[in-house]
C-alpha cells in the first residue's frame, strides 16, 4: 500500500507538472491565441465578403463588447453581432456577457487595469461615480456625432440622463418607465378601480379595505431594494411634496427635516396600515419581488417597480391576469409626475483603440432597422426614435412594457440630480428607511440622522 501511494503521488506530480506546462504553453501568450482565433474568423468573413458590405473596406478590427443580462438579451445581442459582422466583414466583435452579479466589480477592475472592453454597457445610476474620477474612463460620444445620429434621441434625455459635465458618456439603449404591476383579478375581487390616478393616501385607504376583507392579502408590494424604493418612493414623494428634488445639483439638501419626516411617516403608514406587504416579508425578495409567494398565488394586488422588471413580474403571475397602472402620486402635491430613466447605456472605453469602429457599431445598434428587429425590447423599449418606431410598428415589444413606458413618458419627472444617485447616499437612505419602518427610530429621528449623514457625504463629494 505504501508503494502504491508513493507511485500515486508521483503520478499526480507528473500530471500536475505536465498540465501546467501544457497550459502554460497554451496560455502564456493568451492575447495572441485570442487574436489568432479572431484572425481566423476574420479570414472566413473575408472570404464570404465578396458581396461587400457598406463599410466593407478597412483594416480588420476586433471590438470587445461587454454587457450583462439574462438569456433573452444574450441571444438577441449575439444575433445582432452576427448580423453586424456579416455586413461589416472587417469587424469582429467579441461578446463578453454575464449575469448581473459581479458585473460592476469586473468592469471596475478592468477599467483600472486598462483591460476593459471597447464597448461597455453601464447603468445610468453609475454615471456620476464613474465620471467624477480623476481619470477619464469613457470617451465623450459627442465627438462622434458625425457617426452616431443623435437626433433620434430626445435632447433632454441625452443631456440629463446620459451626460456628465457636458460630455456624453453613453448612448441610451432603452427607456424605463415606472408603474404598478397589477393583478387585475385581485383589483376586481376587492372592488378597486383601475382607471384612477392613485395617491399614496388612496392606496392606504384601499389597502385597509383589502385587509378587512381578507387578512391574508395585501394591496401593494414595494420592492425594498435600493434601486427601487429610493427612486420610486423616496425621491418622487419629496419631489411631489416640494416640487423639487431633495438633493440639488450643487450638492445641497433642499428639503427640510419636516418634509423628510413626512415622507418617512407616509412610508411607515403604508406598512403599518397593512396596505403594503410587511418589510420583513419582502426584504429577502429585494429586486426579485416576482418570487414573493403572495404574488404568485394572487394574494397581492400590485407591485411597484420599474418597467425593466415588468417581464419577470408579469410572467410570474401569468399574462392573463396582468395589467399596469401609473405609480401613485402625492395627494395635493406640487408635482404629479412619473419617474423614468434610461434602462441601460452603452459607452465607449476611452482607452479603446478603435473608438470610431465602436461608434459605428453603436449607430447601427440604435438606429438601424435590422438591429431594431433583432434587439426588439431586450433592453426595454428602445430610446432611439428610429428603433422605437420599428418596434412599435411591427409589434416587437411587450405591449405591457410599451404601455407603461408610454404612460410614464406622457408625464415624466424631470431628471434627478446626479448627486442623488450616488450609491452611498442611496444606501444611507435605504438604511434610515429600514430603521424607521422597523420602528427603531421615529420619522423625526430618521430625518435628523439622514440629513446629517447625507450632508456629510455631499460635502465630501463636492471636493
Amino acid at each position: 500500500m505504501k508503494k502504491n501511494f508513493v507511485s500515486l503521488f508521483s503520478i499526480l506530480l507528473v500530471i500536475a507538472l505536465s498540465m501546467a506546462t501544457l497550459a502554460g504553453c497554451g496560455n502564456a501568450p493568451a492575447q495572441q491565441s485570442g487574436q489568432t482565433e479572431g484572425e481566423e474568423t476574420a479570414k472566413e468573413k473575408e472570404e464570404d465578403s465578396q458581396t461587400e458590405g457598406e463599410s466593407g473596406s478597412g483594416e480588420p478590427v476586433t471590438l470587445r463588447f461587454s454587457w450583462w443580462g439574462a438569456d433573452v438579451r444574450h441571444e438577441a445581442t449575439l444575433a445582432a453581432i452576427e448580423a453586424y459582422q456579416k455586413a461589416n466583414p472587417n469587424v469582429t466583435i467579441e461578446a463578453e456577457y454575464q449575469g448581473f452579479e459581479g458585473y460592476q466589480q469586473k468592469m471596475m477592475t478592468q477599467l483600472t487595469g486598462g483591460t476593459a472592453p471597447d464597448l461597455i454597457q453601464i447603468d445610468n445610476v453609475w454615471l456620476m461615480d464613474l465620471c467624477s474620477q480623476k481619470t477619464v474612463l469613457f470617451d465623450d460620444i459627442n465627438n462622434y456625432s458625425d457617426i452616431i445620429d443623435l437626433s433620434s434621441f430626445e435632447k433632454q434625455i441625452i443631456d440629463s440622463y446620459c451626460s456628465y459635465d457636458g460630455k456624453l458618456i453613453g448612448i441610451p439603449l432603452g427607456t424605463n418607465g415606472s408603474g404598478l404591476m397589477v393583478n387585475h383579478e385581485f383589483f376586481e375581487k376587492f372592488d378597486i378601480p383601475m382607471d384612477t390616478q392613485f395617491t399614496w393616501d388612496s392606496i392606504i385607504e384601499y389597502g385597509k379595505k383589502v385587509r378587512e376583507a381578507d387578512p391574508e392579502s395585501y394591496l401593494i408590494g414595494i420592492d425594498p431594494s435600493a434601486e427601487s424604493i429610493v427612486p420610486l418612493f423616496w425621491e418622487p414623494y419629496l419631489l411631489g411634496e416640494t416640487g423639487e428634488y431633495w438633493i440639488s445639483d450643487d450638492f445641497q439638501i433642499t428639503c427640510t427635516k419636516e418634509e423628510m419626516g413626512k415622507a418617512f411617516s407616509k412610508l411607515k403608514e403604508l406598512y403599518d396600515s397593512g396596505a403594503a406587504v410587511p418589510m420583513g416579508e419582502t426584504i429577502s425578495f429585494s429586486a426579485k419581488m416576482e418570487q414573493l409567494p403572495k404574488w404568485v398565488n394572487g394574494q397581492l394586488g400590485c407591485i411597484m417597480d420599474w418597467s425593466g422588471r415588468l417581464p419577470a413580474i408579469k410572467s410570474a403571475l401569468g399574462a392573463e391576469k396582468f395589467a399596469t397602472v401609473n405609480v401613485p402620486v402625492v395627494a395635493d402635491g406640487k408635482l404629479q409626475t412619473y419617474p423614468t430613466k434610461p434602462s441601460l447605456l452603452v459607452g465607449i472605453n476611452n482607452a479603446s483603440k478603435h473608438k470610431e469602429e465602436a461608434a459605428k457599431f453603436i449607430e447601427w445598434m440604435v438606429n438601424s432597422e435590422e438591429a431594431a428587429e433583432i434587439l426588439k425590447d431586450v433592453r426595454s423599449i428602445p430610446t432611439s426614435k428610429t428603433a422605437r418606431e420599428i418596434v412599435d410598428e411591427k409589434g416587437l415589444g411587450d405591449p405591457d412594457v410599451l404601455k407603461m413606458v408610454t404612460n410614464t413618458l406622457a408625464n415624466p419627472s424631470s431628471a434627478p440630480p446626479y448627486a442623488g444617485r450616488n450609491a452611498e447616499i442611496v444606501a444611507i437612505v435605504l438604511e434610515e428607511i429600514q430603521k424607521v419602518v422597523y420602528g427603531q427610530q421615529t420619522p423625526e429621528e430618521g430625518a435628523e440622522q439622514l440629513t446629517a449623514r447625507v450632508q456629510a457625504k455631499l460635502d465630501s463629494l463636492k471636493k
Partner: protein
Amino acid sequence: MLGRRRKNSFNMYKRKQWMGLVYIMPWLIGFLVFQLSPLISSLWYSFTDYSALGEAEFIGLENYRNLFTIDPNFRKSLSVTLKYVFMTVPAKLIFALFIAMLLSMKLRAVNFFRTVYYIPSILGASVAIATLWRFLFMRDGLINDILEAFGLNSTIDWIGDPRFALATISLLAVWQFGSSMVLFLAGIKQIPQDLYEAACIDGASKVKQFFIITIPMLTPIVFFNLIMQMITAFQDFTAPFLITSGGPANETYLYGMLLYDNAFRFYKMGYACALSWVLFVIIIAFTLLLFRTSAKWVFYSEED
C-alpha cells in the same frame, strides 16, 4: 499516555535545519512575487483617497479617523461580525466534531452518510442557496410550517426580522460544517490504533478513551479548525451578499460586506483598505490569543 513516547533527544532534524529553507522555498518565492506587493499596495492605499479608478492621493490618517469617528456602519458591522463569529465558529466546530465521531464508527452505509453531510458544503455559495434559504425561512416558509405542525403558531420572518436575521444567516454557515467535519474525520483516522489498544488493556472505557486519547490527539486539528474558521468567519459575507444585502436595518451587515460595498459599490477603495487593515489587526489579535493559549491545550506527538 502521551508520555509513553518520550524519547532521547536524538534529533536528526537539528543537524539539517537549513534544509527547511529549501523546502519552504516555493512558498517564499510565491509570497514575494504574488502576495507581498498587493499587500503593500493595499496598506499604502489605506492612507489615500484611492477610488480604484483614478490616481491615489495621500490623505494621511483621514480614512482611519473617519472610520473610528464618523462612520456608524463601521461600529455596527464590527459588532454584527463579532456576534457572527462567536455564534458560528463554536457551533460549527462542536457540530462537526460530534458528527465526525458518529461517522468514524463502523456503521453500515457510513459512506453514504458522509457524503450527505458534506453536500451542503459543496453547494457553497451556489445560486440556488439564496432561493433555498428564502424558501425555508420566509413567513410562509417551511420552518414556520414545521413549527406549526408542532403547535407553535409562528409568523416570524426569520430573515426579515431584525431580531432573528443574524441567527438565521449564521445557521447557513453552521449548516456548511462539512470541511471541519472532514478534517476531524481525517484527524481521527490518523490517531494510532495502538494507543487505543493500550488503553483497552489498561481497562479504560470507551468514554474514557474518547477523553484521554481522541480529544488530546485531535487538539492540533481542533486548533487548526478554530483558527481557520475564525479567520474565515471574520471575513465572510456570502450570506448577506446572496440573501439580505446587509438588511434588515443592517442587522446582517457583516464586515466583509461593508468592505465589499466600499470597495466596489461606493468607489472608496482607499477607505476599504483602511477597513481591511483594521480587520487585519483584529484578526491578528484573536489569532495571537489563540496561539498563546494553545500551549496549554494542544498536544503534538512530535514533541519529545
